[in-house]
């Protein structure tokens, strides 16, 4: 009975999503085809055609997929390195008072600075190549994961820690078998923010200076006054961002299944 209800809830959600997206596309199509809006922006059909053409043909020197690949590789390297650093530092700061006393003041000064503010410095330090972009993405994911991991480690149930002690766990075992897994839900909240922040940062970095990637695509489109290239770039940015969020949520569902009372 309950299961049946869940399925129909899901069906309703999917139907509503289809209706709202369909209505948006229809309005876009109708507006560009039959009103003066068509002079400002191409219609959805043309954009879709350009995206499809971009997959098989070339935008600049590469196909769209290669541009996506360039942006993704930059994001992945920076995101993984930044998150690992962030998780370790955050958990240490959240669990050991001395680590918090040493690192937190510094962290609190650096954290509010948006990653894109580092663009000029990163170019001076690392030049115009990949390292500058990866450094920016590192910063974007690092501060978000640090903050959330720290909150996670701080909120570990003391009684659960006592239970581990009573069962004979030593300091190191408590950190790895209790503090770390107990913080996983918070860590994931941080990773969600970190991945979207990284994605935003890579585009900004590519817009400043690069010869490939989705950020390059939309800036090149602007320089050539090619509205279709800009829009297909934006569509791809949206699609990739959406897919990244879904992957993160799936990973969270698997790793945090102990935290959910459903199914």
């Amino acid at each position, binding site marked *: 009975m309950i299961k049946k209800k869940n399925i129909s809830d899901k069906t309703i959600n999917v139907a509503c999503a289809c209706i709202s997206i369909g209505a948006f596309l229809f309005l876009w199509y109708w507006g560009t085809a039959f009103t003066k809006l068509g002079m400002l922006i191409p219609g959805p059909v043309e954009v879709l055609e350009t995206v499809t053409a971009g997959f098989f043909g070339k935008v600049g020197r590469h196909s769209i997929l290669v541009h996506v690949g360039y942006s993704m590789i930059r994001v992945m390297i920076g995101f993984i390195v930044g998150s690992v650093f962030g998780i370790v530092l955050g958990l240490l700061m959240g669990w050991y008072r001395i680590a918090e006393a040493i690192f937190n003041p510094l962290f609190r000064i650096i954290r509010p600075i948006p990653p894109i503010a580092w663009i000029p410095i990163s170019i001076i330090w690392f030049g115009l190549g990949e390292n500058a972009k990866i450094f920016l993405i590192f910063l974007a994911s690092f501060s978000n994961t640090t903050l959330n991991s720290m909150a996670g480690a701080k909120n570990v*149930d003391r*009684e*659960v820690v*006592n*239970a*581990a*002690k*009573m*069962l*004979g*766990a*030593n300091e190191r*075992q408590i950190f790895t*078998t*209790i503090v770390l*897994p*107990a913080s*996983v839900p918070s860590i994931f909240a941080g990773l969600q923010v970190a991945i979207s922040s990284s994605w935003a940062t890579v585009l900004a970095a590519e817009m400043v200076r690069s010869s490939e990637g989705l950020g390059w695509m939309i800036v090149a489109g602007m320089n050539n006054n090619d509205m279709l290239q800009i829009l297909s770039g934006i569509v791809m940015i949206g699609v990739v961002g959406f897919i990244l969020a879904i992957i993160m949520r799936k990973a969270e569902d698997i790793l945090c*299944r*102990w*935290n*959910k*009372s459903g199914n």
Partner: protein
Amino acid sequence: MSMEQERKLKNGNLIECTNVCKAFETPEGEYQVVKDFNLETRENEFLVLFGPGQCGKTTIINMIAGFERVTGGSIKSQGKEISKPDPSRGVVFQSTALFPWMTTMGNVEYGLKMAGNKKAEREKRAQKYIDLVGLQGFEKAFPVKLSGGMKQRVGIARAYCNEPEVMLMDEPFGALDAQTRYLMQEELQRIWEAEKRTVIFVTNNIEEALYLADRILVLTNCPATVKKEYVIDLPRPRNLVSPEFLALRKEITGIMDSTL
């Protein structure tokens, strides 16, 4: 080790509290929670600390467990001063304090894993205690999927699996509904009969105390100290409405009322 201590050990005197005091610093000054508390356990006895609401019973258990330090007097385990938690003293928490990211099996075998036992060996031993508490078939379930009573069964199996010398139980059934509570009292009695241990059990429920205890220490309200001791030698399992049971219940309740 002195003769005196050796004699006590032979008598199974595992836990010995001598004039234990505990005070907390508060902005309004010192707050005495436990005062001159004395206790000696006997081998494999079921000892119940019975007292009103927030009277420092949990603090006593926490100090015996090694989670908190005494501010006066001493607590010894087998003649040695207690300074930190130890696997020889298993604790069952009112909040269960299970590891929510571990399955039933993971929770129960945790202590063995930390001690470096091999997987096959620890699973075998954990299974024994999972079976003992009646959770066969729930080995792979996460705590979030278990009912309150089942969670506490995991908590009991987890503490038992380390084969401690003493079990400390801090109102383990306090958060359960009445029906489940009765059932769990029967279950605990059965488990304890099957695997005899020295148990120190805290409760504020007189029926529970009388149903389970070999000996009851009635505590005063804050600061907690022993007001009276009862040795309960009614046959087990106990009948909750037998005249002897009801008479004891009436008597102890009377003492409690005069304490408040």
